């Protein structure tokens, strides 16, 4: 079934980001950059506190995406990290169909994706191409 352009097909909310979550993600992702878990290091680098791995936020967006679209239909998935995601942020991931396109000869839909915090500030702006 071909979705309508403008149709909102991705929507998911996530619990507040905690220090514990950042520590778990550090281990689970292999991204050991101390700036996300070591307050002393973050301060020395000029940040007021540790902050969320961009890829943790993208993983949430990916989760919201594959809740709505089976992963075997995913062709591309990309994001811009627009702003730093602070501790405590409650993230909402959303996506709507922006365009119907052909991708490598296959009929596809392009989705416009965003992740916002509880104040509506955009953290990630992304795009996915899914096979129809």
């Amino acid at each position, binding site marked *: 079934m071909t979705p309508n352009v403008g149709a909102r097909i991705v929507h998911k909310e996530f619990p507040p980001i905690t220090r514990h979550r950042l520590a778990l993600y550090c281990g689970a992702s*292999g991204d050991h950059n101390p700036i996300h878990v070591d307050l002393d290091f973050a301060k020395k680098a000029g940040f007021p506190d540790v902050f969320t791995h961009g890829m943790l936020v993208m993983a949430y967006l990916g989760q919201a995406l594959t809740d709505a679209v089976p992963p075997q239909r995913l062709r591309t998935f990309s994001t811009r990290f627009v702003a730093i995601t602070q501790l405590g942020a409650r993230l909402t991931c959303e996506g709507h169909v922006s365009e119907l396109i052909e991708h490598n000869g296959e009929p596809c839909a392009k989705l416009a994706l965003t992740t916002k915090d509880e104040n509506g500030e955009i953290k990630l702006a992304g795009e996915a191409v899914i096979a129809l």
Partner: protein
Amino acid sequence: MVDQSAVGREFTPVTARVEPGRLRFFLDTLGESNPLYRDTQAASGAGYAAPPVPPTYLFCLEMMDTTEPFEFLTTLNIDIARVLHGEQRFDYHAPVVLGDTLTFRPRVTGVSEKKGGAMTLVMVETSVINQNGVHVADVSRTVVIRNPRPS
């Protein structure tokens, strides 16, 4: 400072295996409950030989199994405290599932300056090949370096 001479630079290939315990840790960390990622039956019902990896996990596998962590930063003499992740892209060509062994080949594909030299953007593209020689994905990242102010 990183300049155009870095373009074309290749880094040590990384071989990574999709291991069940590590994948479960990742899924648990994200509160991922989609049965497709956890249950062999659900995965095979969707046409997979084994549970697939979630969309961003390829990025993690490369970092987890590298023998030279942050080689990209050390080789190009970039201070880890000055980097931010600017953009990330995945192009999926074939499924990646539990038990696969993947080879990642990263290389620098672009360097550009932003905001009058206040920031340098470095693009790294990584091709991913599985144990059968299938080109399963391309993973691209743009790293933003916050340059120190000239004194």
